[in-house]
């Protein structure tokens, strides 16, 4: 491993979040972006070919070293790391509405889900995957909610565009009115 890959690896092992290209660039002020990309690729391959227990992945707009999925069970069983708590059905549905409709008010979410979402919205905010992104015009100026980069990290995706496109959903029947359709995430 050359000195730059070494530094990149050390940094990825010292950070509690995916490192963005901006952050990584600060590590090698003299290196070009091409060099950075090449070194990251080298590190990724090294983990791959060497049969390491960790891998380099892209999450959100950053790079992150994570342990390999097939080892999770043994590690969790040895009580070394606990798997994160699963989101409830209500939380997942609320997240889905926000992801496809953001920015969206609480009343709009409740309209689509048919239930009150006050509690679940708060817990999604506490978990950091949803945040207030603004206020609507109009009566009462209700708060508008959107998803955060932490959601990308929760899902292990690079952008919300990796969420299923509505054409791909098995609910093939189209709502009778245009207004009912969900926007793209």
């Amino acid at each position, binding site marked *: 491993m050359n000195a730059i890959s070494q530094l990149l690896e050390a940094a990825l092992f010292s950070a509690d979040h995916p490192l963005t290209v901006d952050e990584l660039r600060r590590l090698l002020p003299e290196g070009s972006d091409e060099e950075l990309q090449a070194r990251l690729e080298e590190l990724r391959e090294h983990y791959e070919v060497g049969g390491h227990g960790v891998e380099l992945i892209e999450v959100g707009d950053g790079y992150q070293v994570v342990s390999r999925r097939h080892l999770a069970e043994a590690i969790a069983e040895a009580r070394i*790391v606990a798997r994160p708590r699963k989101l409830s*059905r209500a939380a997942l549905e609320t*997240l*889905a509405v926000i*992801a496809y409709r953001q920015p969206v008010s609480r009343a709009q979410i409740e309209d689509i889900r048919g239930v009150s979402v006050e509690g679940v919205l708060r817990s999604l905010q506490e978990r950091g995957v949803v945040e207030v992104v603004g*206020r609507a015009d109009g009566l009462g100026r209700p708060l508008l909610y959107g998803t955060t980069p932490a959601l990308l990290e929760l899902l*292990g995706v690079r952008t919300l565009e990796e969420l299923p496109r509505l054409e791909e959903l098995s*609910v093939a029947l189209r709502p009778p009115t245009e207004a009912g359709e969900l926007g793209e995430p």
Partner: protein
Amino acid sequence: MTATSITTTNETPFVVRLEAFSGPLDLLLHLIREQEIDIADIPIARIADQFLEAIQVLELNEAADYLEMAAQLLRIKIQMLLPQPFDDEAWEDPRAELVRRLLEYEQIREVADWLSQQASEHSGRFTRGWVPEPPQLPPRPIAVSVEELLVAVEQMVEAMPEPMLHRVVPRPLDVEGATQRILGLLETREELSLLDAIGEARGIVDVLSALLALLELARLGRIRIAQRKAFGSLRIKRERDLATA
């Protein structure tokens, strides 16, 4: 909540466990899909009855959303019974809005399944568990937005107490307390700044107590106070650490 047995028209009744549903739309969709009903032509009278049957076991505090849906179903049922105008073109199906909501909700349900699957797969990739404390750096940058500030204002005003008189209570120096606190901090941390040593309370009494405690500890040889460069900040370390470092 317990399970309800739902009576269907011609087949065997099936059992619905309400806690398995995330809301009235979820329950409604379940009734429709379970009986393989064409969503474009919902037999509203039958579905409304089954819906009411299913929610009989609901407790009052969780019933509101379901009752609202029940009322809507009954309203549609009545509208369906009204004679249709001769001009068929102009007739608007009273079920249209419900169908639209159901389909929209069904999409959401499918996305929720996808999210659940994806999150579950990714949860098997553990991220780095231990990261070093950033050494001697300015405090972390913070992220704050106008919206957050506004929400805070509102929450605060809601919880605003009655005006209180501000009282000033003179306190004696507490060198012993400060000594214990500083030693306690050094149990868990390698190094302290002067501010750390003084602690949260910043009254003149607290500052004096902390300074006297530091001087006494240094005199006893239990800590070392160092300054890396002239006018730099003071660093406080345990003497034992210095010996082994």
